[in-house]
């Protein structure tokens, strides 16, 4: 994790002072509601259904235990005791008081955290692979570049008022765990044959109401040119992106309207002017950031499973399951990464209480190197656990309710806050997620079904990534009541968008529909390794559609 130097700290402190002043002027009636809106938004403060919502950045998903404890403290002191981890490596607090937000930001600043640019039409928090730096399939650790981008994008003078929000994701491993194809800019760190590090640059992906897979504008961009090239892309977007209609303002619409070829030519022409300019990255800066990244001091452990682990694997079925689903291979021998499921049945996906956060911070200190990761699947991760400690850790996680062995399975649902909190929602998402989790609560069955991503959004803004769920559920409004449209066949990696199976369904019908989809899959799969998404690919929508709408309750809706 990157440690601020005095300049980083000063900038964040000055931001707190600025927002304190703005809030004071607003409350004193010296700033109008309209003028205050963009100011609070650039500090992550929304006004939503019940109260303000504060979104705090967790840059590239890395948290130190003291930072997590601070988040727990904020949940307790300023909220109703919970925080919601979002799909964008942010945490959201749903009940802060506007008057207290400057104090919250000041508390965050004491642990090198902030809410800068977590909303508004600017470059947002850069996200990455939640296993960055520890994954066994990693080519390079993307976090140094993420920090470079964080600094470059913080209060960028030219790109503070873009046509629309702008999200950058960086991935450095074989598997894309950062959803790079559905971001405004996706970067794949790659190593050229001669060893040079660079990036494949993807532009114009996105979800929301016009879901699109991005286009590669450059196969290999050497690392020195990262910032100048980003400036070229942002400048073309800033100047030519649509500003007359916010639903058509994302860069994906510009790329499509211009055609990817012309867009690429514009970017290259702009870059030709910026290339080798002062923003060209220097090696000293990478070294400086690297030196400020606190890296764990790993022990020299033997490769292979230690005796404690082997014993637990043999003797305990529950442990075996958890190990299979929630434990991820590490690049250092003797270590593993552990995913803490925030998806226990009956809980809002992504929610964690203050007590749970404190407990996780303690576990990170006790078993790891005091580090926690936040995944875009809304789970927490302890990245550096000695394999020998896994059985003991499992017992502790179980007691905390974080050991549900469902990572990658149907009940590991990604869900946005939906109608319970969000004022843009067409329908609630959390109760639907809970109803599905209840229906598929049986672990044997869940295991039999195998790998399946189910994602829910409460409206077409797609905060719950429903388009890239193997099963996607979208809240729609029909004559003022809540309905749900179902898509199947979406996938995050390789990036594919799901297709709608038919007319939307009422709230109570959703679990039955999921049951019907699963029924078709289980009958049709050729072997246990053929996943749900593979069967959809092989058979198409028809058999699934037929079964779902053959149900008598659903038929009524055709009328």
């Amino acid at each position: 994790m990157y440690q601020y130097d005095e300049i980083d700290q000063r900038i964040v402190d000055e931001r707190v002072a600025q927002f304190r002043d703005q809030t004071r002027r607003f409350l004193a009636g010296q700033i109008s509601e309209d003028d205050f809106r963009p100011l609070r938004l650039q500090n992550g403060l929304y006004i939503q259904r019940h109260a303000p919502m504060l979104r705090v950045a967790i840059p590239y998903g890395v948290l130190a235990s003291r930072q997590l404890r601070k988040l727990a403290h904020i949940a307790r002191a300023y909220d109703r005791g919970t925080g919601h981890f979002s799909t964008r490596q942010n945490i959201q607090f749903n009940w802060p008081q506007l008057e207290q937000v400057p104090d919250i930001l000041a508390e965050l600043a004491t642990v090198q955290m902030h809410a800068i640019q977590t909303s508004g039409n600017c470059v947002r928090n850069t996200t990455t692979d939640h296993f960055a730096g520890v994954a066994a399939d990693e080519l390079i650790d993307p976090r140094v570049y993420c920090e470079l981008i964080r600094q470059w994008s913080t209060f960028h003078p030219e790109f503070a008022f873009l046509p629309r929000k702008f999200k950058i994701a960086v991935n450095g491993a074989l598997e894309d765990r950062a959803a790079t194809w559905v971001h405004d800019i996706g970067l794949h760190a790659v190593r050229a044959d001669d060893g040079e590090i660079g990036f494949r640059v993807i532009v114009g992906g996105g979800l929301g109401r016009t879901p699109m897979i991005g286009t590669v504008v450059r196969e290999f961009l050497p690392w020195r040119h990262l910032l100048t090239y980003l400036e070229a892309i942002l400048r073309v977007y800033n100047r030519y992106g649509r500003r007359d209609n916010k639903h058509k303002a994302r860069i994906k619409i510009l790329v499509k309207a211009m055609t990817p070829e012309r867009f690429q030519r514009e970017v290259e022409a702009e870059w030709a002017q910026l290339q080798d300019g002062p923003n060209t990255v220097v090696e000293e800066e990478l070294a400086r950031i690297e030196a400020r990244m606190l890296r764990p001091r790993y022990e020299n452990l033997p490769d292979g499973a230690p005796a404690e682990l082997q014993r637990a694997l043999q003797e305990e079925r529950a442990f075996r399951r958890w190990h299979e689903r929630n434990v991820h291979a590490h690049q250092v021998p003797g270590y593993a990464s552990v995913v803490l499921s925030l998806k226990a049945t009956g809980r809002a996906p992504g929610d964690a209480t203050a007590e749970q956060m404190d407990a996780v911070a303690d576990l990170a200190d006790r078993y790891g190197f005091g580090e926690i990761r936040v995944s875009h699947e809304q789970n927490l991760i302890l990245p550096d656990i000695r394999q020998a400690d896994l059985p003991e850790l499992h017992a502790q996680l179980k007691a905390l309710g974080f050991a549900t062995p469902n990572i990658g399975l149907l009940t590991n649902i990604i869900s946005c806050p939906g109608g319970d909190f969000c004022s843009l929602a067409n329908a609630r998402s959390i109760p639907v997620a809970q109803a599905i989790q209840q229906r598929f609560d049986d672990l044997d069955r869940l295991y039999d079904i195998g790998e399946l991503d189910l994602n829910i959004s409460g409206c077409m803004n797609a905060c719950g990534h429903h388009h890239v769920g193997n099963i996607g559920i979208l809240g729609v409004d029909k004559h003022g009541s809540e309905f749900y449209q179902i898509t199947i066949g979406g996938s995050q990696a390789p990036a594919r968008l799901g297709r709608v199976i038919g007319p939307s369904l009422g709230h109570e019908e959703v679990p039955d529909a999921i049951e019907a989809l699963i029924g078709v899959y289980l009958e049709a799969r050729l072997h246990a390794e053929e996943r749900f998404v593979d069967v959809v690919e092989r058979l198409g929508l028809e058999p699934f559609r037929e079964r779902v709408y053959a149900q008598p309750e659903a038929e009524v809706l055709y009328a």
Partner: protein
Amino acid sequence: MPDVIRNRRIETDSFLRVESLDGVAPDADVLVPLALLATQRDVLQARSGKLGLWLETADEPVEVAQYLPLLDLVVVHFASFADGRGHSIARLLRERHGFRGEIRAVGDVFKETLFYLSRCGFDAFVLRPGESVEEALKGFDVFSEAYQASVERPSPLFRRRQAAVSKGLPA
């Protein structure tokens, strides 16, 4: 034109915004739209008064480039402060086309926007009506450092950092 903030001071402004030259004294300082500049270039050049150009955020700096040597002032009008195209225009005029005259932001300009605008190359500002000048002037100093390369400071922080840190600036 109301008072203008220049070099962090309030100064009175001599420019007169005109759509045509009819009845305008030859030594008056005028601010003209691009269309007038394009059609009356020679006449405008022959005048003794100063010449300024009025741009909207949708205008293209490239089309303006050929006139820059004639100009003392370029005004960029922000119908909304949130229209970031104006920021790119100023940077391009300074960094790509080498314009050294005054670049003035007018329209929806207030305290919180000055920090961004000044770094993009604006060196003069007309606040929107009702803003306190005294309050707005503090807007330049809200942040004591910035990460990026900018017109004000062409070297990004990462190139200055070692020196900046070792100088022991106040924390």
